């Protein structure tokens, strides 16, 4: 068991260093793919055999605490160096605010920071580990051909791919390490590695925009870092430990919840919740594999993971009540913003922010059922969202645009990628697929709280709008005229896309087994009760139930019916378009005067006059800030 853990966590770090020094592209690819396979395999071994078996220190006598403290110090100094070279006073201040208190706390406060079991694996860790190990490494493989094309496009010489892959591999190692750490100081260390990795990756292209976005990401995440440090120190002050399992075993109330409030705030910055959303929106300047990684398996998921870890600590408190509202607020407002966007990556970014908001909200609803739904959403969202980002990246390389208006009729140009994209969109949007199933569970459980359910109901309806129209646009086609082109795709693109698409469907079909095997045990461990029965393709609670098989059956019958009818004789016609030939007249006479023929144009409703990103964002930020103040208010008062 120890060995698979070591492989899973340490190998990416080692391979990262090797990749950095390997100039030969072929050798580098071999190392990346081999590492990917080992990481996937080891995560499966851990999932099958390895619960709670990592007691004690994994490396025998080596004092990891010491090494992590040193690593943390070096990392902070590096961030300080970056801040100074960026000449950003705010950033310097934030870095010092992390560095100095942490240093003093670790060395001069006389605190006993020993943790009996610094490494810990329960079902939640295993779920996260599987997501990171599979989705993350598939993104590596995708990145191999993407980055080659990308550097050709942008004419980058000499190649900087070794640096790119170094950070990409490091990122996954840090995520897996974070997941298995039970010592808050360790978590903080790996948390900071993900921060610096994302900073380096967002800034990879070295354009002015990339520099600006990466600085913003570092700045906002440094705020989270400061909150994390305060959380650690306060937590030690109140409970005399940095052991997460011990911390959450105290059913704290009142002022004692303060450290958890700070840690949740740190998680909000990481998960790009409003008002901290701008760093994730800016992050899309990075090459697509970075966006896919940030949005699906790493970085933003670290935030919600931390919240799901801490749920038992604030369960049932007023703090939870405010966090639930805060998450739902992010859900509805980010969904609203997504409607106003035509940039595909930005739509996905807002959808990520919204879904994370929903996960956070569900985690704080004060019901074991909702916590189960939150974990479910975490899994399904990770896979479908990674898939969608990779699709948009592939489309962008294919047509040179990421605007959904430019994707009209894409099925004719890129049939393979388009079909995969449609699968991704459908699994994000419709039942019986997992994302919607989780949403259904959240709404039913949130229904006790009318304010919450109001926000979630409207947010879901908004989601339908921006995803449904995207599907339709992609599929637009006049069969009698449009010829489907043959699409050539590199296997390094084809394989990750196909595997993720298949995964997104397979885990939805096998949702009850996943639920019983991974999610239910975690919820029971937290709360000693569950409240959900998952069996024979249905998920049921004491107040409702969803049976999957009828829906899958109906969809299968529909597809079969469609197939049979299409096999029969059909005549293919042109779309009905009276008046459109008027376009051929450049000038027309209106009331005796010659006028230019106006151009007819059909596009989506974006409501840019009402939902203006620039105008609305400051107000939303203020509203979210008020909610955060309320969060601390209910703890202190």
């Amino acid at each position, binding site marked *: 068991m120890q060995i698979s853990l070591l492989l899973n966590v340490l190998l990416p770090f080692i391979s990262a260093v090797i990749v950095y020094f390997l100039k030969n592209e072929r050798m580098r690819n071999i190392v990346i793919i081999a590492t990917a396979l080992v990481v996937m395999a080891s995560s499966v071994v851990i999932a099958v055999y390895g619960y709670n078996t990592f007691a004690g220190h994994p490396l025998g006598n080596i004092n990891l605490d010491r090494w992590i403290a040193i690593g943390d110090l070096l990392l902070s100094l590096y961030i300080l160096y970056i801040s100074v070279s960026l000449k950003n006073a705010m950033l310097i201040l934030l870095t010092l605010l992390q560095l100095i208190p942490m240093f003093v706390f670790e060395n001069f406060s006389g605190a006993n920071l020993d943790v009996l079991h610094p490494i810990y694996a329960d079902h939640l860790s295993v779920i996260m580990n599987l997501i990171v190990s599979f989705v993350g490494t598939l993104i590596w493989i995708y990145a191999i051909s993407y980055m080659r094309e990308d550097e050709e496009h942008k004419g980058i010489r000499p190649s900087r791919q070794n640096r790119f892959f170094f950070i990409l591999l490091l990122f996954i190692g840090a995520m897996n390490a974070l997941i298995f750490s039970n010592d808050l100081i360790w978590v903080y260390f790996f948390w900071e590695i993900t921060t610096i990795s994302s900073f380096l990756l967002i800034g990879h292209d070295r354009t002015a925009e990339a520099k600006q976005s990466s600085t913003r990401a570092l700045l906002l995440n440094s705020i989270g870092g400061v909150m994390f440090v305060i959380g650690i120190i306060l937590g030690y002050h109140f409970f005399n430990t940095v052991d997460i399992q011990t911390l959450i075993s105290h059913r704290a109330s009142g002022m004692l919840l303060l450290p958890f409030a700070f840690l949740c705030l740190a998680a909000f910055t990481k998960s790009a919740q409003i008002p901290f959303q701008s760093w994730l929106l800016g992050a899309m300047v990075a090459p697509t594999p970075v966006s896919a990684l940030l949005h699906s398996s790493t970085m933003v998921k670290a935030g919600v993971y931390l919240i799901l870890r801490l749920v038992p600590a604030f369960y049932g408190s007023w703090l939870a009540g405010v966090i639930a509202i805060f998450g739902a607020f992010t859900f509805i407002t980010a969904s609203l913003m997504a409607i106003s966007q035509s940039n595909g990556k930005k739509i996905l970014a807002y959808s990520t922010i919204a879904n994370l908001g929903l996960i956070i909200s569900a985690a704080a609803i004060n019901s074991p059922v909702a916590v189960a739904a939150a974990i479910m959403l975490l899994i399904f969202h990770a896979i479908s969202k990674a898939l969608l980002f990779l699709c948009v990246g592939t489309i962008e390389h294919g047509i040179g645009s990421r605007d959904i208006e430019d994707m009209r009729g894409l099925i004719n140009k890129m049939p393979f990628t388009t079909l995969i994209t449609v699968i991704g969109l459908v699994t994000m949007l*419709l039942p019986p697929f997992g994302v919607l199933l989780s949403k259904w569970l959240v709404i039913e459980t949130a229904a006790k709280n009318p304010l919450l359910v*109001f926000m979630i*109901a409207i947010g879901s309806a908004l989601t339908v709008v921006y995803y449904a129209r995207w599907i339709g646009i992609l599929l637009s086609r*006049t069969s009698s005229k449009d010829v489907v082109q043959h699409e050539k795709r590199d296997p390094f693109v084809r394989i990750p896309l196909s595997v993720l698409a298949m995964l997104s469907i397979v885990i939805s079909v096998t949702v009850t087994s996943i639920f019983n095997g991974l999610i239910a045990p975690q919820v029971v461990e937290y709360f000693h009760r569950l409240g959900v029965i998952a069996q024979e393709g249905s998920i049921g609670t004491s107040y409702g139930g*969803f049976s999957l098989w*009828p829906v899958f059956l109906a969809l299968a*019958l529909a597809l079969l019916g469609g197939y049979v*009818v299409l096999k029969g004789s059909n005549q293919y016609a042109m*779309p009905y378009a009276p008046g459109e030939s008027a376009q051929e007249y450049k000038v027309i006479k209106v009331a005796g005067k010659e006028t230019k023929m106006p151009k007819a144009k059909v596009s989506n*409703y974006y409501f840019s006059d009402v939902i203006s990103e620039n105008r609305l964002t400051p107000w939303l930020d203020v509203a979210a800030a008020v909610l955060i103040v309320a969060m601390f208010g209910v703890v202190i008062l």
Partner: protein
Amino acid sequence: MNVLNIVFRLLLALVVFPIIGGLIVGLDRKLTARLQGRYGPPILQPFYDVLKLFSKQRIIVNEFQVISVFIYLASSVLSLVLFTFQSDLLMIIFVMSIGAVFLVVGALSVKSAYSQVGAQRELMQMLSYEPLLILIIVGMYLMRGSFNIAVIMSQGRPLIEELPLLFLVMVIVLGIKMRKSPFDLSASEHAHQELVRGLLTDYSGLYLGLIDIAHWFDLMLLLGISTLFFYPHIVLGIIASLFLVILEIVIDNVTARLTVKWMLTYSYGLGLVLAAINIAVVYILR
């Protein structure tokens, strides 16, 4: 649940209810004609229409239209079946939304401005009614402690006594879902408008006929939900639902179509406020 029971429920959902749905549509056309001073077609006309459509030559623009129609029909049929089997109401609404989404996808897949605009408007119709429908169901849950129709129906007094405002919200939902004026934005019965037939412009023959049938299923599901408000007084519920239909027809004939923004303002402004007041009262009193 014994075999006879299952057969009975399936028969209701697959045969009896859709026929009633078709008759209601026939009634609609007759009544509308009378309101406009015409004689109007026979009540059975919708069935004749569908039969004729089925026998027509099959013409399509692309394959996705066909797939979309079949998914729309399947989801509408399934949601009504789930209703007669007294399943989870929220699940039923979610299943219905599959079909609604695919109807839009099918229309968007055609490069005709009329279909496209109709589809975009239909999305706005969905945006308008979906949250309201969910809130109606949440109201029922708050009263009965369950989303299961069986449980909702198992208790004594009719829901309408405590959820009168939500029943009014149902009027708005039905109007938008049935695309009745002033909410006939995405497609209307009258072909002489600027959108031709909007969403449905590029559907014909068999496929248009299937959409008509799916529409009957949808109509009956919504009327079923409105009947739930009156349970255990089923007869009263049926009368009220019929009254609702006639009310929609009258509104349809005395109002003119309005803009998308107006619809959103109206459904969110009026519908959400009514729902909020009703739910707040129920919530505070319990």
